């Protein structure tokens, strides 16, 4: 995993694309996994462990919410409205999109 992240960071540095290094690393690993090799057996267990305990990694940043300045904390209610509304809109949008495509295909 670490190796692929470094690979990703390097590729990003060389090519100057705007994708974060770790994401580039994920793409490289994804491409490598598409070809049958022993790689899946090696990275599989490590990846599982990391993903299972993923929430732990978010804790440090998340704690910071309680020490945000008043300018930002005062806007949290608005922020929640924005999130709730846009999430609802996207779900409706995608549902309509998919049912429309599906209906068009069945015709």
């Amino acid at each position, binding site marked *: 995993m670490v190796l692929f992240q470094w690979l990703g960071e390097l590729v990003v540095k060389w090519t100057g694309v705007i994708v974060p290094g770790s*994401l580039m690393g994920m793409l490289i690993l994804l491409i490598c996994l598409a070809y049958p090799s022993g790689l899946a057996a090696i990275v599989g267990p490590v990846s599982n462990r990391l993903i299972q305990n993923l*929430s732990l990694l978010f804790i440090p940043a998340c704690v910071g919410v309680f020490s945000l300045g008043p300018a930002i904390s005062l806007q949290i209610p608005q922020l929640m409205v924005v999130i709730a509304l846009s999430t609802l809109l996207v*779900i409706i949008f995608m*549902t309509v999109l998919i049912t429309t495509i599906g209906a068009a295909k069945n015709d």
Partner: protein
Amino acid sequence: MTDLLAMQWQQITASSWLILLSVTGFWIGISIYRRSSGKPLLHPLIIGTPFIAILLVLISVDFDQYYKANGLLSWLLGPATVALAVPLSKNLKPMSKVMPILTIAVLFGGFFAAVSALSLALWLTSEPIMMLSIAAKSVTTPIAMVITHQLGGLITLITPIVLFTGIVGILVAPQVFQVFGLQDERWQGLILGVTAHAIGTLKAFEKSPRCGAFSTIGMGLNGIWTSLFLVPVVQIFMA
């Protein structure tokens, strides 16, 4: 290359015993969450983080000090993002048949998610930093964190934003599916993954493995796709 390694090494070695606080908070959060048989409002982060915040005040450690002490955990986010490739690749193979619809749905859905969040944020909030911090809300947390970092948004804000998005997503999605008559669980899964990321994916796996697999794909592809278009789109909005 060497400066990159040196920087990461410094981040790791800055870790201290304060990291134990995070582990304890996480452990308490997880055990309460499991006992509640997985209620989204009792997510480990919702239980664990206030607990740590209170402790930090009690032992008078400020947030910056705590955050630096958790360098190891923050550093692990990189490899963890890379690790997402494994479930993605496992689920991608059986889906080649429905790839066209799937791709269209993810491309439009992911784009719409970011644009709707940005437009609403522009309308309802006044701080530009809010816009930068909310843009990546539909993306799974590790990816959202790197994208937000890149945008210059608040890393601390993105985790609860993503979490809240996921909770809203799984609460409203079943109603929307019913109103619009979407019964195919593959597409239900995909929508849950794109809009409610990991929380949606967990929900999808409760329904069926097939639903969960589509959700994993939706989440992963949306993460990659969003990281590609978000920077230019945000620049347009901020202009």
